[in-house]
């Protein structure tokens, strides 16, 4: 390995661990981005789902068209789009008050478009089931939704490409700061571990919950939940 002579592999692992708090702070930003994306996306998705189930045909068609769009926009490109096209600050009309739009909010906005597509598809099915009185089936959306949230947590690492200081971006900062190529493997591996150790147990819980609910509420097997990933 490309280590300076005074540094062994063990030492470079220990050095990696000293950066753990800094990296975890970055992961906090990943969670924050994901939470905001889920919140905004779910609200927008709910509006679209309502539109798709509504009476007026134009509203229905608009709902379908918008869902189709949100499903097919690659969030990675949309992230670039928002980073370059949205101003970094907006002055509110009249008041003259200036609002800053930090990079992580733009990232959350970009990811929320994928959440919107997912929620528009799955909520409209859930809503329809609920209206038919099949409440158990409608409630199945909860574990799927939570599972999708974890996918968003992983997707939030793409925010690093536009300079948001989240986990992956901080990994690069650490590597650059130490100036040691031997640090790359342990640092990235640590980041992998943070993702796997957080997401895997949660996914297990969600899958378990989902199967329990399916066994309880459904008499026939069900294909996995639908919706484009970010």
């Amino acid at each position, binding site marked *: *390995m*490309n280590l300076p002579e005074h540094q062994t592999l063990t030492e470079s692992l220990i050095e990696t661990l000293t950066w753990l708090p800094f990296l975890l702070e970055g992961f906090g930003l990943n969670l924050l981005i994901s939470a905001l994306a889920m919140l905004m996306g779910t609200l927008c998705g709910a509006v679209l789902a309502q539109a798709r189930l509504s009476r007026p045909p134009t509203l229905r068609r608009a709902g379908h068209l918008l869902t*189709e*769009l949100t499903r*097919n*926009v*690659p*969030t*990675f*490109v*949309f992230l*670039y*789009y928002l*980073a*370059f*096209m949205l101003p970094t600050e907006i002055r509110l009309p009249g008041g003259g008050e200036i609002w800053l739009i930090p*990079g992580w909010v733009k990232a959350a906005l970009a990811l929320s478009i994928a959440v919107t597509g997912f929620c528009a598809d799955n909520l409209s*099915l859930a809503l329809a089931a609920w209206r038919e009185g099949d409440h158990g089936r409608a409630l199945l959306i909860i574990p799927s939704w939570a599972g999708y949230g974890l996918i968003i947590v*992983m*997707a939030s*690492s*793409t925010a*690093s*490409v*536009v*300079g*948001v*200081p989240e986990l*992956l*971006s901080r*990994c*690069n900062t650490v*590597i*650059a*700061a130490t*100036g040691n*190529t*031997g640090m*790359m*493997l342990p*640092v*990235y*591996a640590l*980041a*992998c571990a943070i*993702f*796997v150790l957080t*997401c*895997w147990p949660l*996914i297990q819980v969600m899958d378990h919950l989902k199967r329990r609910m399916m066994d309880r509420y459904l008499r026939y*097997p*069900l*294909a*996995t*939940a*639908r*919706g*484009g*990933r*970010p």
Partner: protein
Amino acid sequence: MSAACGMVWARLAGLLMAGGLVFAGLFMGAPAGAQWVAPASATAALPGDSERLALIQRRGSLVVGVKTDYPLFGGLNAQGEPEGLEHDLAADLARRLGVRLTRVSVTSANRLQRLEEGSVDVVIATLGDTAERRRIATLIEPHYYASGVTLFVRPDSPVREWSDLRGQTVCATQGAYFNREMARRYLLDLQIYNLPRDARLAVRDGRCAGYLFDHTAIAADLRQPEWAGYRAPLPVVLNAPWAIAISRKERGSAFDRWLGDTVADWHRSGFLLERERAWGLPASRFLKDTRELWSRQQADGTPMCLRGIDGQWPAACRNPAFVSSAEVSGLMQWGLRLRETTGIDLSIVYDPEDRRAFGSGLMMTLGLTLACIAGSLLVGLAGAMLREARWSLVRAFAAFSNVLGRMTPPLLQIYLLLFGIGALLAEYGLRLSPFWVAVACLSFYTGAGVMSALREAALVHRQTDPDYRIHPRRLASIVPLASGAVVAALINVAKATMMASAVAVPELLSVTTTIMAERGNVGVMMNIVLVLFLLLIMALVRLLGLIEQRLVQGAPRRKSVV
């Protein structure tokens, strides 16, 4: 341009020069070490229809306005003697004409005025080419140099690309024309200082990633002992071309053409590149690209950049910023007219270089997409088979890979493989290709999803046939059950291929960010690329839907599956 120059030098030069002092008769020979071939034809076949040229020959000397307040280009050495790259150019002009050289010190404020009065024949004084200045003077094409923006960084800085700076704090000085533009194009977070000195000290103290400034001024700073070890590692961007200027009245004259031919020869012979090196300037891409362009030959061996019957250079050899739609035809005319009438800067239409890059980016994206789809199917099928293998160790490995594949962000996987593992392999002289690393990681990530879909379908079969195993020969039995989820996974991988841009694979998104950083047409390019990707994905959805219907008779329309 020269506003960006060091203040100290300006003051020093002002003291010494006291206005437009003339170094009458100060003859300078060709700069030592310069090697070039003088084109005999250019000097021999001088048509005499230029008043100014006739005057120069009559008086036996060429009067050139040069700077003395702009180190490296036109400055003063330790003995107070004027010198610089532009002084060398002036000397070469006189040598080619076979006359004496007379240099006149000019400043940014008076250089064009001196031309207008007729007190100098030529101005070579860090003059940036603009449409405004073209109305006051005749600016010679091709341009002999271009100043741009670069970053002054600490010796230990890890910065290697402009894109490394996204979202980072970068120092700048107040009033620089490029601050806003650079922040917009490269997503920089600027920290503005009043004086260059303060900004440089901020870099020294690590308060910002680097100091954003004119590259010619940074080159001069880097020669100061105080900043030994400091660097300017980034390519010079936002290039503003510099032109030699002569009087407005001489437009299209033999003098104009002779100067243009001479500059073209400076590029072709490598004289400018050689002088740039000699003055310790950082290697500019402008000179390298221009030399490459002007040395290009047509099929019959004649140079591509030859003057037409109208005396103009072909549009392909000129800077598109100074070409108008009336001078060209075809796609270029259409694109330029659009820019002139609407302000929409579709450089991928009018600029042949951008058009080629964009086209190859598009092909690269299509190639990535196909490779990722094939890779995902392969990984998914292999994974599903291994997961059902006889040996428990193999099964455990497949299960573990599946979790790893699904639970780590693909971008992180790409970094881990390309840089982490790549650093290990580099020890053995092996280099990983970013393209195939991206394909492998995205296939691994999506393959995990395909694998789960195949296994769920196999579970259904196992209810009737407990010995059912997934096998390539039994695909027909599994496709109808798994196709929906598999197609969804494949569409998802197509939506993720642009992640390869993070490791500099020149696909569509990465080419687009390069073009817009160079041209500044951020809005247009971003809209185009977003719509283009949307259309690509929608076409793929249709295509995969059709294939699915072919494979699975009576497959449900892909929408209303739970």
